[in-house]
């Protein structure tokens, strides 16, 4: 059934700390490794060792340069910072990837809010991927069905695993502890406290999908004022724009 549950018992999701993520991609690799052999697998790769490799990934790590106010460096550059930005399914409360599904293959679980796809009934029309603003849906070109993050549903309830490992693979593997897993519907949970404390936010709330995952913003940099106050020696910057007529001519020549 692709109609959404009115409310879910729990709202399981991820909290991602953008302040300490180092962009190592270990979460994406661990995700691929677990799910490749898990219930949703295999996650196909095409031309994995070729010139144009492509494959199914549930987790992607973007990185961004964020310019802050400041004027350090030559040419009035900024005291910017690099932000690593892992992104996977948000397990939205109003998951329109589910409601657009014509077959009922997509569904949102009433007990914990996890959004899943039944690979046996998916027709591979890709409409769910069009309906998702976060890019969480993947088309498997070999199985010809849609696949997505399951929040490691086959790990988190798995009695065969030691209790400490009953978290999504991405959370378990993160070497810096930038990923947290828990019930974001419970105001007393550890993840909710973290979100409260660090002013965590959901992505693109304007879309109205009610994403469950939360992002903890990078902390303000302590060295920002310091960096802004540093004045570089004038000649260091001048080297980049030669005053000498001969050098200018050479510069123009090479710039052609």
């Amino acid at each position: 059934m692709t109609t959404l549950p009115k409310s879910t018992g729990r709202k399981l999701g991820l909290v991602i700390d953008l302040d300490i993520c180092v962009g190592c991609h270990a979460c994406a690799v661990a995700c691929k490794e677990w799910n490749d052999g898990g219930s949703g697998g295999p996650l196909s790769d095409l031309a994995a060792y070729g010139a144009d490799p492509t494959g199914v990934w549930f987790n992607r790590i973007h990185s961004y340069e964020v310019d802050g106010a400041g004027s350090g460096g030559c040419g009035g550059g900024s005291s910017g910072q690099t932000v690593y930005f892992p992104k996977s399914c948000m397990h939205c409360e109003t998951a329109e990837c589910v409601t657009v599904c014509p077959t009922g293959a997509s569904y949102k679980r009433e007990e914990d809010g996890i959004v899943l796809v039944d690979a046996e009934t998916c027709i591979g029309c890709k409409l769910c991927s069009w309906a998702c603003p976060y890019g969480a849906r993947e088309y498997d070109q070999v199985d010809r069905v849609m696949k997505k993050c399951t929040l490691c549903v086959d790990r988190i309830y798995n009695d065969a695993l030691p209790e400490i490992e009953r978290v999504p693979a991405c959370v378990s593997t993160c070497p810096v502890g930038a990923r947290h897993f828990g019930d974001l519907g419970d105001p007393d949970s550890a993840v909710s406290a973290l979100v409260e404390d660090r002013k965590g936010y959901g992505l693109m709330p304007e879309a109205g999908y009610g994403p469950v995952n939360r992002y903890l913003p990078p902390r303000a940099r302590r060295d920002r004022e310091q960096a802004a106050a540093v004045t570089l020696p004038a000649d260091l910057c001048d080297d980049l724009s030669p005053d000498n007529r001969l050098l200018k001519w050479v510069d123009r020549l090479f710039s052609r």
Partner: protein
Amino acid sequence: MHPAYSVIFFTVASGAGLGLQVLLAALLLAGHVSPVSPVILTGLGLAFVLISGGLLSSTFHLGHPERAWRALSQWRSSWLSREGVLAIVAVGSLALLIGSAFIAPLEALRPLGIWGSLLLPLPTIAATAMIYASLKPIPAWRNGWVVPSYLVLALMSGALWLGAITAPFSGILPGQVVFALVSLVAGAVVKLGYWRRVDRPEAAMRATGLGPAGTVRPFDPPHTQPNYLQREMGYRIARKHAGKLRRVAFVAAFVVPLALTLLSIVLPHWPAAGAAMLAAAIATFGLIVERWLFFAEARHVVMQYYEGE
């Protein structure tokens, strides 16, 4: 968005077929023509080929076409499912109408076929348009011009194909020419309105939420090669020719067919028939370009994560 040829062909062909079906049903209800006359049967046959060919083509872009029947189950929430259900009932009433001309026991059911053909095609076209108009991550489609565009363009191409069919038989009926001219003008108006709306900059959703910290620039993509999302949503080829293609679509879909339809009024029988057929063919070409642009020009918000906010 990636313009899949199967979907372009589907929306243009089934749109024209469904438009033709409505107009034929209206002609039959008005009682001007017999439901078993060659001209009506030719029209119904063409509508059937266009609609069922379009529906068949729409299954080609599926990963599992053999499971397509499952798409009829979720009409409570999914516009794609509603479209499928409506299209099948619409085609069913068309088949009934055709069958009643050849199979005597079906003759009693002819009114059902006529009323179904009158009432079902337009909701089917509207459901197709709503598949696109309901997608929040694609601002170009999420506006009030999409549903009217699909409805008007379907009726317009249906009217032109009706002209192409009736002209060789009996000459074009006067009411028919008026309808074709009005629908051509209406089509031009809704398409210009849609393009104006799409070109208007709007408050975009911000992908990363990092805005308060400063300007956000993509630094390093998640993969070395383009992934599924970039191939499906990040279609950019020939977008730079969009302006030229819009002019081609506009002239072919509206201006030339309008001139040819006007010409067909004054021309004698056979040249008029030729002009009417040419009008339908050129308009269909124009609508294919228009539909290609509908997909190719639409941007998905997920691309902000790759191309910047």
